[in-house]
């Protein structure tokens, strides 16, 4: 396969740059800064040091013995991104991008957040580097991820409530883009997933691919072989592309992306872009999009704020069309049940997003005796405790 993306940021026919002209030169500037940093050993040395001593890399690859026994099939390993500082994989990308922002001399950082994990990770790196931080978050997400709103504020960030549209991630991204259009000269937009215009999908992947590189070495150490399948949840697609990337040349390794099946397969009740969407352009990139027959973007639903978004990252669209990765969806209820199962078999309370990946792996495990599965446990579940309480009332008396 030819290396992706091309010089214009295209993964096949996906990705690219679809933004107002005002943002084109800033994207070019960002691309230059990123490409220079990539070639600079001092940049890598500083990033590696931060990932190691501040964020807690490498993360363990943990053999989930009781989960494996309970399911009675494939041997299941968990890549423990939930153990990273701030509680999710998002910090990998934030540390990388904040160093880029510093190289560009930007003193102000803005971000969008859905589940609040990216907002927390952004607020964290801004505190670490003494930068002003503004995070846009949909009102609905602020309600359901209250803990993270307070964490961001405690870290010194300003959280701006977005009350447009569905009041979720998509609307937060639009508002962040409007801020960026207005304040381009001083501001870096620290986008939190493998979304948006070139160079974001490439840059975010590069900062997250360490997950797959570690996991690939770790599984060979543990099992003396490659896994049969790697599972990851797909919101915008950053944790998934990060763990998939190192395995793409390993044709024997199945790559399984898990989207949010929400309440039902009806448009508006899920965020399964591949089964329910079609190619379109939103917020800077071309990819699979949930839209109506007039090209208006559909509302989405997922119990998990981090997966509740109408467009999938463009590299996933390309992996889908080429057949290299497979995309499925898991509904709200299955994800909740998987979270409870993992909590009680392994003593690990996962983020609701990650629980979608656990659920898909669990559903395949019993048919896969002798196989080895790796599941990306992208985040921990503290932020979701209120939702777990609402859904497991019987535990809360």
């Amino acid at each position, binding site marked *: 396969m030819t290396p992706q993306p091309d010089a214009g940021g295209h993964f096949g026919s996906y990705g690219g740059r679809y933004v107002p*002209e005002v943002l084109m030169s800033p994207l070019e500037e960002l691309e230059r800064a990123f490409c220079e940093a990539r070639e600079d050993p001092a940049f890598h040395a500083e990033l590696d040091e931060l990932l190691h001593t501040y964020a807690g890399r490498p993360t363990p690859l943990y053999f989930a013995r009781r989960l494996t026994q309970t399911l009675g099939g494939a041997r299941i390993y968990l890549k423990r991104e939930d153990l990273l500082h701030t509680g999710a994989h998002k910090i990998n990308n934030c540390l990388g991008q904040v160093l880029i922002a510093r190289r560009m001399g930007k003193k102000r950082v803005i971000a969008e957040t859905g589940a609040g994990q990216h907002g927390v990770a952004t607020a964290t790196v801004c505190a670490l580097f003494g930068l002003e931080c503004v995070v846009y978050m949909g009102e609905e997400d602020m309600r359901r991820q209250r803990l993270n709103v307070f964490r961001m504020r405690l870290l010194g960030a300003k959280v701006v409530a977005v009350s447009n549209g569905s009041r979720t991630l998509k609307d937060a991204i639009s508002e962040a883009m409007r801020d960026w259009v207005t304040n381009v000269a001083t501001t870096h937009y620290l986008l939190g997933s493998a979304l948006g215009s070139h160079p974001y999908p490439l840059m975010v992947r590069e900062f997250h691919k360490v997950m797959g590189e570690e996991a690939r070495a770790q599984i060979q150490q543990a099992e003396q072989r490659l896994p049969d399948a790697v599972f990851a949840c797909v919101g915008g697609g950053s944790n998934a592309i990060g763990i998939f990337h190192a395995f793409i040349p390993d044709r024997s390794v199945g790559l399984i992306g898990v989207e949010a099946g929400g309440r039902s397969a009806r448009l508006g009740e899920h965020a399964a872009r591949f089964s329910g969407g079609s190619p379109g352009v939103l917020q800077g990139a071309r990819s699979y999009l949930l839209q109506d027959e007039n090209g208006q*973007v559909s509302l989405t639903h997922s119990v998990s704020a981090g997966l509740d978004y109408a467009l999938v990252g463009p590299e996933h669209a390309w992996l889908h069309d080429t057949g290299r990765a497979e995309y499925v969806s898991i509904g709200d209820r299955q994800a909740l049940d998987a979270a409870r199962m993992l909590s009680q078999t392994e003593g690990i309370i996962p983020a609701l997003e990650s629980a979608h990946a656990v659920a898909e792996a669990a559903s395949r495990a019993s048919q896969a005796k002798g196989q080895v599965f790796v599941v990306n446990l992208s985040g921990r579940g503290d932020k979701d405790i209120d939702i777990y309480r609402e859904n497991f009332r019987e535990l809360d008396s």
Partner: protein
Amino acid sequence: MTRIGRLFENLKRSGGKGLIAYITAGDPTPEHTPALVEALERGGADLIELGVPFSDPIADGPVIQRAGERALRAGTTLRKVLDIAREVRRRSEIPLLLFTYLNPVLRYGLEALAKDAAASGIDGCLLTDASVEEAGEYVRIMRAAGLDTVFLAAPTSSPRRQRLVAQYSSGFVYLVSHTGVTGERETLSDAVGPLVRSMRSITELPLAVGFGISRPEHVAELGQQVEAVVVGSAIMHLIERNLDNPSLEVQLESFARELKHGFEMAKAGAHRP
């Protein structure tokens, strides 16, 4: 040549300047729009940008966002906007420019839109989020149907990008007066002067300036530098404040007239000793 091209030729010959009025089609309802367009034309608007509402308008400020939401709630689609254009064409030869985002256009289909838009009396198209890098096929198809493609140049555009924007544009080039979203402003930014001078050295195409222009004094100031000015949010704000007011059309007409008068103010000012 489209009606847009002829408009700028006439302006050049007469030494006049053009007032471009943006209106979100379908606000408050698709049925209202033709009468609002006609009111703007009576007041002196020379070209109408017909905004097609999109669910996620990243380049728009609150006023046009709200206009788009009302229009979408009223059932406005790209197809209906073409019907509106056809309705306007029954009585008027005012140039019409579709103004929207890429996704509704892709969903409609580029070939289908080019054909249907031309048949509906549309003269050209401007897609806010179609960068020149991604616009090759779109430009080819629109031009083949005899439609103009207008692109934006911004104060942040490098000289290389300014040349690309000029190369991909026909009819006129739309200069964004400041970095930011659409919306009314108290004062004009000084970024536009250098952008105008730079574009003049690159292209012969007429130049229009938009974003933030809301008062006759702004029109007066810019009228000395460019061939046309665009007023959008101020018009949509007036519509929003008078959604149920029977005098809306009269008010729109007189607002357009005041804006247009800005060009006269500029001339008078220039002649003062």
